[in-house]
């Protein structure tokens, strides 16, 4: 083991490549395969389309990476998105100006995060249970808010959904900025390092002077706000809020992306780069199934398989590190 580590150090391979080499290799292979076997995959419009589709998941996954770094977990993000899209759509459809509706959406997300964080820290309920409960509640609330029907916002958010910056979709740019910011926070700020310290050993973190409860609550609030951002992005892309577009189903994709990216389930180790690779991989696989004209029922199967393989590989790697 020791010899292996030494030889690895001598070759000047950057840490991030060592850490994510496997995932990167899988992603590149899948892309190569699709480029060869379909004509459409390697075209600019298709690639931009894939990235535009994963933008919403990318925003959610970036926040979840920070939260999971601290040992937290949020199963309610997708359901938060569902409620926020419904409420924002109702507001816009009833004549509220879009900026006001957007701010309301973000505030709503912050409230959801606050509730989750409060229950988890003050009552000590496991994050898994708390957020599964709030997810179920919010899924129902979303249906109530939509009265079971799709709510169209006509072209109110088209500027966001189809807008471009330097030839790139605006949604993609937003997701990129959020992910880059999360990466910087996790690596170069005290906020991010404290999150990792809490995930690594929360007792030592507390004794070291970190306000663990406050920090944990702010992470849940941050995730709620990002759920608001994601909700507005989703609404702008679809032009309507409709039942079943978000909720637990969306959430599972987000969690899968973070886990595929190598974030430890109990916290203490995480990278946003891994998460981004996980998000893109899932997007490419979904696109591939589409392009290869495989029945779309196989998409969940593929997500599950990728998740399982990634989880096993991560487990083996952590075990060999000890």
């Amino acid at each position, binding site marked *: 083991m*020791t*010899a292996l*580590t*030494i030889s690895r*150090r001598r070759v000047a391979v950057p840490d991030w490549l060592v850490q994510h080499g496997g995932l990167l290799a899988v992603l590149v292979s899948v892309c190569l395969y699709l480029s060869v076997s379909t004509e459409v995959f390697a075209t600019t419009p298709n690639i931009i389309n894939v990235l535009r589709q994963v933008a919403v998941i990318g925003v959610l996954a970036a926040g979840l990476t920070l939260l999971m770094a601290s040992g937290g977990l949020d199963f309610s993000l997708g359901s938060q998105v569902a409620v926020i899209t419904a409420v924002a759509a109702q507001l816009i459809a009833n004549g509220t100006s879009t900026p006001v509706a957007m701010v309301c959406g973000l505030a709503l997300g912050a409230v959801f995060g606050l509730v989750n964080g409060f229950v988890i820290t003050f009552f000590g309920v496991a994050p898994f249970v708390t957020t599964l409960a709030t997810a179920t509640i919010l899924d129902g609330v979303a249906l109530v808010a939509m009265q079971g029907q799709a709510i169209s916002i006509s072209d109110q958010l088209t500027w966001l959904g189809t807008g471009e910056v330097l030839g790139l979709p605006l949604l993609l740019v937003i997701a990129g900025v959020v992910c880059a910011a999360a990466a910087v926070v996790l*690596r*170069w*700020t*005290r*906020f991010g*390092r404290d999150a*990792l*310290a809490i*995930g*690594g*050993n929360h*007792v*030592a*973190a*507390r*004794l*070291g*002077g*970190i*306000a663990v409860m406050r920090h944990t609550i702010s992470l849940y609030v941050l995730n709620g706000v990002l759920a608001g951002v994601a909700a507005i992005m989703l609404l702008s892309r679809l032009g309507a809020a409709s039942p079943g577009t978000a909720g637990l189903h969306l959430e599972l994709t987000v969690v899968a992306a973070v886990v595929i990216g190598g974030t*430890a389930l109990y916290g*203490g*180790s995480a990278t946003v780069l891994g998460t981004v690779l996980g998000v893109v991989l899932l997007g490419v696989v979904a696109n591939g199934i589409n392009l290869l004209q495989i029945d779309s029922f196989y998409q969940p199967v593929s997500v599950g398989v990728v998740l399982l393989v990634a989880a096993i590989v991560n487990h083996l790697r952590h075990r060999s*590190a*000890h």
Partner: protein
Amino acid sequence: MSSQPRALAMRGIAKRFGGAVALQDVDFDAAPGEIHALLGMNGAGKSTLVQVLSGAIRADAGSVQLGDTHLHHAGPRGAREAGISTVYQKRTLVPSLSVAENIFLGELPRRSGAVDWRRVVEGAREALSDLGIDIDPRTRVDRLGPGQQTLVEIAREVRRGGDVIILDEPTASLGGADAALIHDLVRRLAERKRAVVYISHHLEEVMQLSDRVTVLRDGEVALTSPTSSLTMRDLVEAMVGSDVVVERPSRPRRERRPMLTITGLAVRGVLEPLDITVGAGEIVAVLGPAGDGQTALFRHLSGLAPADAGTVTLDGDRVDPRRIARTLQQGLRSVSGDRLGSGLNPLATVNENIAALAPVSRRRLISWSRIRREALELRQRFDVVTLHADPPVTSLSGGNQQKVLLAKWLSGEGLRACLLEEPTGGVDVRAKADIHELIEAMAADGVAVLLASSDVDEVLRLADRVIVLRGGVVIDEHDADDANHHDINHALLGGIS
């Protein structure tokens, strides 16, 4: 299992891992009724020898014999069935199950398919009382103290029978009173003609308890001799190969400005009101069995749990330990005795751990080059030895982890007083000497040091003043110059030994 107890004989054991020699030509015997202590620094080969003996790994050369039976390729199961049982340092009890279930773990007696609970409880009761252990078998294991858990673990192995029992540092994390219980049990095992292989870092314990000592150094036997013909110094020399100071260096005594003052600190049922004043540059030891009052001292000074009463002042300023960040800034640091449990982040590297408290990390933005620079300096100052530039902290030996722990908690601006809980728990002799030097250097710089320890040697070596606690009550207070081993041990163990 034969009725006649058999002797253990290991001959010419050798083992290599890759290019590294772990054991070379090691002979080791244990006769029925003998307590044979196995000593050695970290990495000397003790664990490898135990693993060979318990069948966990296979030796490259040599033989293991129990009576007339050869056990060379027995494997863990085979070794156990042949009559060699092992109690590992790491606990293997299931905390959420009862003592009785743990004793019968994996072999619960059944009657017509269902678990026969009466036999489980009665069998466990018998196994415990047979060894003179006073624990109700229906108690959940997590309700027991660490000492009692070790007793249960030993009782489990004894019930399964066998001629040889290996005890791997059974007292490593225990205080004096609990250790005394283990010692009594070990003596009873020997009376019953078991051969006991006893591994320990604690020299005094070995001197008192064992009939014979084998010291391993760099994978070879450095010494095998009856304990009665040895002194502590002989053991230390055999372990490190050179002389390490165990005597207390003389320190000038002078009047000291009170720095850390604890007044009336009390926790219901755990700690009677306690007053301690530590002067600048003074080392005051609070000695007591682990799990007794001095553990409470850490929990309350560090801010983990509030005390029921009491005040703490630092150089005249009031300190509220519950406000942890502020207390750290004021210059009071409490260093846990449980390094990976509550002192360090086991998932982080050495540098990240060292920097986690230092002022650098308190800035909002992190500069990695700064962390590297400062950590390097601290690693030199605290003498942390690593093979790689910045390895995960869990890859270090216990002694080096302990130094990282001290570097993390005792560096940075403004350190004025500290509480050190078992600062040399489970580290080898050399690291222990290093850490003692660090503590003395810190005191020489004017830091008030409060030492919570259950290690009498350490206390006598370091402390200017000794406060002895038992059952949360101060039973004795000495200037170190007047104190000696006998007095302190006597006070500490009281009615127990």
